[in-house]
């Protein structure tokens, strides 16, 4: 690696040299080894490529890149072969030699590994043509495919750190703030506060020492957008942070990474070391005279630490309890000093805005919600993964065009956005634009970008109970409404889902919910009732069924359902008999259906899962 870069010219020279390296005739294979591809076995695929390239002596003919998340996690492990933008999915290590022989060396496409349109069965070769990608606008995530996140040269080769050079040498700090303000960028962590205004307040706050912080404590269960970004393109976040520090007048930054993200932690730590070596971080950055350094802190496994004041308490080495924000953290934050905290995704937007200008950014999205937003599209949708869409897109577009609709031809029931602070929206709201204000208006939230799709087999009362159980455990326990209120609401929902609910439970839930909204100390408590209140608003009939008819239409609430075996459909194959962990199913005799003993049944659903003929019925 070259030594310290002492001027923007030296950076530009390095960029040119590295960019030239990209203009080769060499084939390129880029394999996703993001966290979500790993459960599918992407590691063995990567190893297989390395071994095969070595064995076949192809090192001069093919450039092999292990990258972060490509987004289409559902189809992992994934590889893209250039030229041709050929998208291979669900690759196994056995497929690797064939990919090298046929596609890389002879430009033949292996149709077995292509994505097939679920309905028309048409094969799609190029990544850009897949409906999953075609309908997105991947200004931030798009680069994940092009770079090895552990190599700073890859980032520089595609123009990385040029925005930093521009910011340091072409602009005054206040000009940068103006550009960010003009871009209309709003905080991607969920609150949606205007980033430029926040920066300005922090810059103007009294004090010589100021801090900038990356909030990478993505605790929202079911959301992993920040993980994908920090793991797949750590330098973009770091570059944004350094620019922000310069604009605000800070010389020390912190990156607070969630404990459950070991790969993100590794990649950002590595990125910082490399940036330091190249003089992009540390003293006298690029010869500008500006000093700035960063420290990484690991979270300890607490959802509440995503809240800015709790995160700062944790950075100070204390228990992650939030405090009232009547004095803003931009004035009195970490160690009572002015501190600007932004989400991973917010920081990653900064280099793009500096390089392309506020007007370019404003053209994406809507006038009050500019730019793109990354969502982790998960749950009962066909194409799960990380998607990046322009703000203002309709929910329906995301779920049906990009997400490819509901799995197994089932019926859409609800979409949850904003995690434990958000709400569940019904079918009738699918034409709503996705932006900060619209989502808040209907009782949900943008949050950090979780988007969980639910179908007819999901019980909305159970979902509300799930979020409350989550919050009950994650509440810091400091204030009465959050600590006691969530527990009581969860107990009421327990009663409802176990058949002991009363009609008076519903107004009581609402009353506690409103008290939490009004009087909880922080946003975790204040927004905790959202999943309950929205499901009660949009799916009230399910609550009433649970209470009055003792019925769970989705077949989820264990105390309200029974499993039985339909005689006509049962082939007496014995699969369920073998699989049942409670020995509740017995075979009566040859060619006779099996019998399920209700007294022994623990409702674990195993029989339902193993029966290929749908003979197991849930009522």
């Amino acid at each position: 690696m070259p030594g310290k870069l002492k001027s923007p010219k030296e950076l530009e020279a390095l960029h040119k040299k590295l960019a030239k390296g990209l203009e080769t005739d060499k084939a390129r294979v880029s394999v996703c080894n993001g966290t979500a591809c790993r459960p599918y076995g992407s590691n063995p695929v990567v190893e297989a490529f390395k071994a095969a390239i070595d064995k076949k002596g192809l090192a001069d003919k093919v450039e092999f890149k292990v990258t972060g998340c490509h987004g289409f996690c559902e189809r992992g492990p994934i590889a893209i072969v250039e030229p041709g933008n050929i998208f291979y999915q669900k690759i196994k290590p056995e497929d690797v030699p064939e990919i090298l022989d046929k596609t890389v060396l002879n430009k033949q496409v292996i149709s077995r590994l292509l994505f097939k349109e679920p309905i028309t069965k048409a094969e799609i070769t190029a990544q850009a043509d897949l409906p999953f990608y075609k309908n997105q606008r991947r200004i931030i995530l798009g680069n994940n495919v092009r770079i090895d996140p552990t190599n700073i040269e890859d980032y520089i080769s595609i123009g990385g750190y040029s925005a930093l050079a521009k910011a340091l040498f072409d602009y005054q700090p206040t000009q940068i703030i103006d550009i960010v303000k003009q871009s209309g960028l709003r905080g991607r962590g969920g609150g949606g506060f205007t980033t430029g205004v926040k920066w300005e307040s922090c810059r103007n706050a009294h004090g010589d020492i100021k801090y900038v912080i990356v909030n990478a404590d993505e605790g929202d269960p079911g959301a992993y957008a920040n993980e994908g970004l920090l793991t797949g393109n750590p330098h973009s976040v770091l570059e944004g942070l350094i620019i922000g520090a310069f604009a605000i007048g800070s010389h020390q930054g912190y990156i607070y990474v969630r404990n459950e993200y070991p790969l993100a932690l590794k990649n950002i730590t590595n990125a910082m070391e490399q940036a330091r070596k190249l003089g992009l971080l540390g003293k006298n950055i690029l010869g500008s005279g500006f000093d700035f350094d960063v420290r990484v802190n690991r979270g300890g496994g607490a959802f509440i630490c995503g809240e800015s004041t709790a995160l700062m308490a944790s950075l100070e080495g204390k228990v992650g309890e939030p405090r009232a924000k009547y004095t803003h953290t931009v004035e009195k934050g970490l160690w009572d000093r002015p501190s600007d905290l932004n989400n991973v995704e917010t920081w990653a937007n900064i280099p793009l805005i500096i390089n392309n200008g506020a007007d370019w950014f404003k053209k994406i999205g809507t006038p009050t919600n500019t730019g793109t937003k990354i969502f982790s599209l998960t749950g009962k949708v066909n194409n799960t993964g990380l998607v990046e869409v322009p703000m203002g897109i309709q929910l329906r577009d995301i779920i049906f065009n990009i997400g490819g609709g509901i799995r197994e031809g089932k019926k859409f029931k609800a979409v949850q956005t904003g995690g434990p602070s958000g709400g569940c929206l019904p079918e009738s709201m699918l034409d709503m634009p996705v932006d900060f204000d619209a989502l808040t208006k209907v009782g949900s939230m943008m949050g950090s970008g979780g988007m969980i799709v639910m179908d007819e087999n999901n019980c909305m009362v159970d979902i509300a109970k799930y979020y409350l159980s989550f919050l009950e455990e994650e509440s810091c326990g400091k204030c009465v409404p959050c600590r006691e209120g969530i527990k009581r609401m969860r107990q009421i929902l327990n009663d409802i889902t176990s058949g002991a609910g009363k009609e008076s439970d519903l107004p009581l839930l609402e009353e506690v919910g409103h008290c939490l909204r009004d009087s909880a100390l922080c946003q975790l408590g204040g927004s905790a009732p959202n999943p309950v209140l929205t499901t009660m608003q949009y799916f009230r009939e399910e609550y009433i069924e649970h209470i009055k008819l003792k019925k769970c239409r989705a077949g989820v609430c264990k105390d309200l359902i029974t499993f039985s075996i339909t005689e006509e459909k049962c082939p007496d194959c014995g699969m369920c008999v073998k699989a049942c962990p409670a020995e509740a199913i017995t075979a009566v005799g040859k060619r006779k259906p099996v019998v399920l003993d209700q007294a022994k049944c623990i409702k674990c659903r195993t029989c339902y899962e193993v029966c290929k003929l749908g003979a197991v019925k849930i009522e």
Partner: protein
Amino acid sequence: MKDAVTAIIKKYGNDKSQLVSILQDIQSEFNYLPRAALDKVSKKMDIPQSQVFALATFFRAFSLKERGKHIVNVCLGTACHVRGGELILDSLQRQLGVTTGGTTADHNFTLESVNCMGCCATGPVVKIGDEYFGHMTNEKVEPMLNKYK
């Protein structure tokens, strides 16, 4: 043990604000937070015992009890929940004969749950050590565990 703890504290320059990271490193070293190590931290860094204990009990990542050789982590994030993550946890509890947080008698497994590990698209997910298992079903639980027996 004391040397290892001293080295960890030194690595962080005796910085009190790095207490969470220091406890993390101690846990990586010993697989849990041994009492003697915590006392050492308290003494060496001049942090009241009560504060170290508060921190160790506040964060979910820390364990004050000795844990098994393999940590089985079941994801209960929302994306895993809607695809039946709890049923996988039930199944693991049955097969290991312990409840969440428990360690098997042979000290081979400790069963824990986590609220999301950032690979939601592949839920339900279980992680054993550093290895991830996606799209889990009740049926896959036994063969998965057998790999570690």
